[in-house]
């Protein structure tokens, strides 16, 4: 009696792994989808930075002028150049090249007073750490990704008519429609689901599978990095002694930038070591994504006085290249804006697949949730609430995060932290709201709120000055708002329309 068929056990696995991790995965996928446009969102969150059409070398000249005035003694100057995706010109002095720097007005070379903000990078970080301590977050997300693979494979096994139902969608049929929508978004976008989940795991191969590094390098990641890159070129630079240098003019940046662009594609940043000395070195880094391979850490080195090329960008070995191509496939930095849009829309489809999946769980049990005993009934009630809070509540929280960026006072201390706090507070409030309201009202109100906040987002640019060009971001936000308004509107009319049908209809398919 207890013997189950393979399909039945797979269905059990799919239901429960899908439900437990579905909520987590929805949060990961939604923020990941937003992170496709992290720099654009970042630009929107810093409205003090003006839109510019200045060439990179002109912007770099302005930055050089500022650095020479403010930090003539510094050993290293770093310049982050504006590019296709961002108008931001940043400079910093000293070894540290990550972590902000000063934003300059590329037209005048004067520093800009830019608001402190968590920026679009918040979505990116939340996507793989859930804002937990880094390693804990990465492990949690990795576990969820494994569960996603399990759910995908078991989902394929239990889908009875994979090809026959390939294009099937029957709207306005209650549970049937939810199942159809879940199947269609899962099956048709399956290559994307599998690719993004698997490559997501491959990015952190060193964290998830540390055995080889532990055995060969005693767990020393720096040693591993050197071995992977191949050391000699590095030493050639570091070995020189800075004391024996005289003052010397820095070479012109324009031909140098042109040469770097020819060899590596568009350039994202420059580092100038020993500026104004005879042993000056200029390091140019490409923007990510001139090719699929994730070229993080790649650079090209020039002599700062003569402008000669001292080191060409390294070429990855096959094993490393494989990993970098997979990571690149996940980061979607290649192929320009059209590819970015493809990833964004596919990501939305993934979110829809996850959302319809968790909603399907409750739709099935709404009529007879006592079928699985007292625990099943309790779980149904919890799931109904959590669905609202995770799916609709998270969307509200994401928009609220953007609203907080414009509405919190600019002089607030720790402003970036407060934006994140608003995000989590709103999310928590949505859970409270989902618990005290009946489920239908909770869905309707939260979806309505998310839609309203998205649609009215462009109005925020009227508050205070905003110098950038945000047309596409605002159009997208309005479009997403309209998309969210649709289910909200459906919820208003649903009860009358569906009531008679519900009586006559018996549950059709129980498996899958």
């Amino acid at each position, binding site marked *: 009696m207890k013997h189950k068929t393979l399909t039945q056990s797979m269905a059990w696995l799919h239901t429960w792994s899908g439900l437990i991790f579905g909520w987590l995965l929805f949060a990961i996928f939604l923020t990941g989808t937003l992170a496709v446009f992290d720099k654009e969102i970042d630009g929107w969150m810093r409205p003090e930075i003006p839109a510019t059409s200045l060439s990179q070398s002109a912007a770099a000249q302005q930055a050089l002028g500022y650095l020479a005035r403010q930090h003539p003694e510094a050993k290293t100057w770093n310049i982050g150049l504006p590019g296709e995706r961002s108008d931001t010109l940043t400079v910093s002095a000293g070894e540290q090249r990550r972590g902000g720097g000063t934003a300059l007005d590329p037209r005048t070379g004067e520093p800009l007073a830019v608001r402190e903000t968590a920026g679009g990078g918040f979505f990116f970080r939340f996507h793989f750490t859930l804002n937990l301590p880094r390693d804990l977050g990465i492990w949690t997300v990795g576990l969820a990704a494994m569960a996603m693979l399990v759910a995908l494979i078991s989902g394929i096994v239990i889908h009875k008519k994979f090809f*026959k139902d*390939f*294009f*099937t*969608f*029957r*709207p306005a049929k209650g549970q049937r429609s939810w199942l159809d929508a879940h199947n*269609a*978004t899962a099956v*048709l*976008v*399956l*290559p*994307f689901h599998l*690719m993004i989940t698997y490559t997501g795991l491959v990015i952190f191969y060193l964290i998830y599978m540390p055995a080889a590094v532990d055995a060969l390098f005693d767990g020393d990641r720096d040693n591993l990095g050197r071995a992977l890159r191949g050391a000699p070129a590095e030493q050639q630079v570091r070995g020189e002694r800075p004391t024996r240098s005289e003052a010397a003019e820095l070479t012109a940046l324009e031909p140098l930038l042109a040469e770097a662009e020819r060899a590596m594609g568009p350039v994202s940043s420059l580092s100038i070591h020993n500026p104004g000395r005879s042993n000056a070195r200029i390091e140019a880094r490409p923007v990510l994504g001139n*090719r*699929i391979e994730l070229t993080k850490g790649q650079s090209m080195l020039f002599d700062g006085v003569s402008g000669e090329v001292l080191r060409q960008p390294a070429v990855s070995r096959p094993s490393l290249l494989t990993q970098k191509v997979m990571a690149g*496939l996940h980061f979607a930095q*290649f*192929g320009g804006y*059209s*590819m970015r849009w*493809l*990833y964004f*829309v*596919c990501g939305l*489809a993934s979110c829809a697949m996850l959302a319809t999946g968790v909603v399907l769980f409750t739709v099935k049990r709404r009529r007879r949730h006592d079928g699985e005993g007292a625990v099943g009934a309790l779980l149904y009630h919890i799931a109904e609430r959590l669905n609202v809070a995770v799916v609709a509540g998270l969307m509200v929280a994401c928009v609220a995060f953007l609203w907080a960026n414009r509405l919190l006072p600019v002089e607030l201390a720790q402003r970036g932290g407060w934006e994140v706090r608003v995000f989590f507070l709103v999310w928590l409030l949505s859970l409270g709201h989902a618990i005290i309201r009946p489920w239908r009202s909770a869905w309707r109100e939260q979806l309505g709120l998310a839609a309203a906040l998205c649609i009215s987002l462009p109005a925020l640019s009227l508050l205070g000055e905003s110098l950038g060009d945000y047309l596409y971001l605002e159009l997208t936000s309005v479009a997403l708002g309209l998309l969210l308004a649709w289910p909200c509107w459906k919820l208003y009319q649903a009860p009358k329309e569906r009531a008679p049908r519900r009586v006559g209809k018996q549950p059709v398919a129980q498996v899958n």
Partner: protein
Amino acid sequence: MALIVALLLACGGMLGLCLGLERHYKQLWHRLPSPMLRRGLRGMGWVLLAASFAVSVQVWGWAMGPVAWFGLISLAGLSVAFLLPYSAR
């Protein structure tokens, strides 16, 4: 521009494959397709998908083209699946 061409070709291809199935053909025209027509529609669907692949490779190159193509046919299939029941009424 080329993106739109590749997307339209993918949509056409997916529509061909979709209407090559009895159930969906009936949805639109309320009668069964002849086996010839069905095979023709499917064949055309595959040809258009192949054309979409060729355009993707032309635009993005051999490395990125297939990646883009998979995304394009996924989205094309999704829009066909979701729009069909509404256009059938």
